[in-house]
């Protein structure tokens, strides 16, 4: 039915091949191959989404398979087209198209453009394949393609040692998560005998009482481990800030459209484990309470809530424009995990109607994708103009970069959750869901407080960034060279700005978004209903956002409060030092690597030398001793016998040969002697003995 969905993945792959193989013949225009192939994917994906939504208007579950090939027996390589994947395809391809378009301008003066655009295409193909995978193995394959591309693109300037090591770091840190994910996939295959989402759901509904409940908790946690690596959650968040060494459009791609979003998507897909449902009647699903892994849900929510707060604090003290955005990405992704965790809890507790958390998280994913792409591309535009990442050397750029500053302001408002902007709707909904889950488990109340604190810090650091960059006086040098970016870069910014404002409106179109991407059942509550249901919560989050923005304005715009106030006291200074050193976690990881890994290596080395080599040498020594004994036996006994024999022969022949004189008469004498004896014997025998009377 939806077989043409394959085009969505194949088109960027073809673009990858063209740009990679033939791009060097037209390096100036190779970017358009990328834009064209991903853009084509977007068109097909949009068509697919419209088709899916028409299947019974918005709110009807569609779950279709685009048939593929049987790859290995039991595992079919095919696409799952449901509301979630159809929507993700559109989102990813749209953002990637805009980012590729922007890259044409950003990378105009760079070497190696064919490589860059080929890798972009492959990256996007990996993400599109991940979101449309029908089974966990296929998902893992495309997931790993993305891991590879992130490595290649972060290390695009591979001659820069920082970029090379950042790429290596990204690859190695996400690898930890990927290995967990792989274990999860293996566990699923062993326990359920299938990797297809629908098959697993059926198996789980039919057999959950026969499955070890520890496995039911472990599997979603292993999958979440993969998501933690990919989405840079604590404690695997180390790679994302360093990934800023790559070109800025790549950062935008990683942070907005691909890569980190895959982790959220994976957790959304693993809802089949978090909140297992069964079909009690056609079209009616109910939660299987016995099979809900409550601890796994709690862990996901706690990691989310903690990382949100933790990453936001690190963003407060950073001066690198891209790193601030990177920490904010970690923090915002953590919001999504918090939303998914709280949503899963509510869903499991209250039944299938309560899908607000799931949809809020995915709504936030969408909004975040737009405004974070916008912020990164705008930051890239700024960097393109001033050739530095350090915000201390910016300032007052508003008059030089009018379009960039305006679009970035819109992105910043959305990120800080300013009422009416997209971030407000989704973030508020996540916080509301978390608060609501607090009535079931008070831990969620704590997480809600962390979320509120994060919202305040988010608003503060976002506007700190904006004010430091665009307001005040220029603090860098060569002001006359600062100019607005070319049209090919500003147009994507404007399109993204429109989406940033507009994506909040999706919620109104689809009754609180959940009818777009619902998991168990569509629900009726619109965004205004959600706000009206808990006006206090909405007011709190608005106040917090405005408070953060206001504080940033006071410190960095009006400068009525000096920034030094925060670092003047000893405690403040040490907090600042702690934050700007990223809680010393990177150093800790390095020390761990230095002492832990090297220690393990030394221990292994010792073991290798002493035990294994010792064993080998012992065996060798034993063999040598045995062969020496054998040698001794051979020489002494066997050779001795042989030599003794030959020596005796030689000696006796030496004696005997003396009788052989060569003189004829000697021989004759011997003959005569012998003959005489014969004659004497005959004589005795025949004559003497008879004569003596012997018989």
């Amino acid at each position, binding site marked *: 039915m939806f077989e043409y969905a394959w085009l969505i993945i194949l088109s960027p792959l073809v673009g990858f091949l063209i740009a990679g193989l033939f791009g060097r013949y037209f390096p100036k225009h190779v970017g358009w191959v990328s834009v064209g192939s991903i853009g084509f994917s977007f068109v097909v994906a949009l068509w697919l989404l419209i088709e899916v939504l028409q299947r019974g208007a918005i709110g009807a579950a569609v779950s279709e398979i685009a048939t593929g090939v049987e790859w290995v027996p039991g595992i079919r390589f095919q696409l799952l087209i449901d509301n979630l994947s159809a929507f993700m395809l559109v989102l990813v391809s749209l953002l990637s198209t805009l980012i590729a378009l922007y890259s044409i301008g950003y990378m105009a003066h760079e070497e190696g453009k064919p490589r860059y655009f080929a890798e972009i295409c492959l990256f996007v193909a990996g993400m599109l394949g991940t979101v449309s995978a029908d089974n966990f193995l296929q998902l893992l394959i495309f997931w790993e393609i993305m891991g590879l591309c992130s490595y290649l693109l972060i290390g695009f300037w591979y001659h820069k040692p920082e970029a090379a090591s950042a790429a290596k770091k990204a690859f190695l840190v996400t690898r930890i998560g990927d290995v967990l994910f792989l274990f999860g996939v293996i566990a699923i295959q062993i326990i359920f005998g299938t990797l297809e989402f629908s098959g697993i759901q059926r198996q789980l509904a039919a057999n959950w009482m026969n499955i070890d409940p520890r496995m039911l908790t472990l599997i979603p946690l292993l999958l979440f481990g993969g998501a933690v690596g990919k989405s840079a959650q604590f404690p695997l968040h180390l790679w994302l800030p360093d990934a800023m060494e790559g070109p800025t459009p790549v950062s935008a791609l990683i942070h907005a459209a691909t890569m980190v979003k895959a982790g959220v998507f994976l957790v959304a897909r693993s809802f089949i484990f978090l909140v297992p449902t069964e079909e009690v009647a056609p079209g009616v699903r109910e939660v299987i309470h016995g099979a809900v892994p409550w601890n796994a849900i709690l862990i996901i929510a706690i990691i989310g809530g903690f990382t949100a707060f933790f990453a936001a604090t690190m963003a407060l003290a950073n001066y690198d424009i891209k790193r601030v955005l990177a920490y904010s990405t970690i923090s915002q992704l953590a919001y999504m995990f918090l939303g998914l965790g709280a949503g899963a809890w509510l869903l499991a507790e209250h039944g299938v109607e309560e899908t607000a958390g799931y949809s809020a998280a995915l709504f936030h994913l969408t909004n975040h994708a737009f405004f974070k792409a916008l912020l990164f591309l705008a930051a890239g535009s700024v960097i393109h103009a001033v050739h530095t990442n350090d915000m201390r050397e910016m300032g007052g750029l508003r008059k030089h970069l009018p379009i960039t500053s305006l679009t970035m302001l819109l992105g910043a408002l959305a990120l800080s959750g300013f009422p009416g902007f997209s971030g407000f709707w989704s973030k508020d909904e996540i916080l509301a869901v978390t608060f609501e889950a607090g009535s079931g488990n008070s831990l969620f109340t704590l997480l809600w407080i962390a979320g509120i604190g994060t919202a305040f810090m988010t608003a503060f650091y976002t506007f700190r960034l904006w004010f430091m960059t665009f307001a005040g006086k220029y603090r860098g040098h060569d002001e006359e060279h600062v100019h607005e970016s070319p049209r090919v870069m500003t147009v994507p910014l404007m399109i993204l700005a429109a989406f940033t404002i507009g994506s909040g409106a999706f919620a109104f179109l689809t009754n609180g978004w959940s009818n777009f991407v619902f998991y168990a059942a569509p629900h009726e509550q619109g965004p205004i209903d959600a706000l009206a249901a808990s006006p206090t919560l909405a007011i709190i989050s608005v106040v917090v956002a405005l408070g953060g923005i206001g504080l940033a304005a006071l410190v960095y715009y009006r400068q009525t409060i000096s920034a030094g106030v925060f670092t003047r006291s000893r405690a403040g200074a040490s907090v600042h030092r702690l934050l700007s050193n990223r809680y010393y976690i990177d150093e800790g990881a390095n020390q761990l690597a230095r002492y832990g890994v090297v220690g393990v290596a030394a221990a292994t080395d010792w073991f290798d030398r002493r035990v294994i080599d010792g064993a080998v040498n012992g065996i060798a020594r034993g063999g040598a001793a045995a062969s020496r004994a054998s040698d001794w036996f051979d020489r002494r006994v066997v050779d001795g016998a042989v030599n003794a024999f030959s020596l005796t022969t030689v000696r006796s022949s030496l004696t005997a*040969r003396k009788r*052989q*004189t*060569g*003189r*004829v*008469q000697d*021989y*004759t*004498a011997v003959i*005569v002697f012998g003959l005489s004896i014969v004659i004497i014997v005959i004589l005795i025998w025949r004559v003497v003995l008879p004569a003596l009377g012997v018989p």
Partner: protein
Amino acid sequence: MIPLEYELILSALLFVIGLYGVLTRHNAIVVLMSIEIMFNAPILNLVAFSAYTGDAAGQMFALIAIALAAGEAAVGLAIFLVLYRAHGTVDLSRVRLLRW
């Protein structure tokens, strides 16, 4: 008629004398001559027994043996001639080829 024992004793004496010559003399020619003496001992025996038994076959054998002895002497002399050519001597104590 001469008794058989006398003839046998004569024959034995001839044999022993010839044997003594073969074993003691150094000159190959003398050794050959001694062999001829030894040869005569059995021939004499043949004749003696032929006369004793009255069977003429013994005399026939004796004649054949004499003829063979002539051939043997001829062959022996030819060998010594060649020996002399090769070594310049017919002294048997100095010709030591039949050794290790």
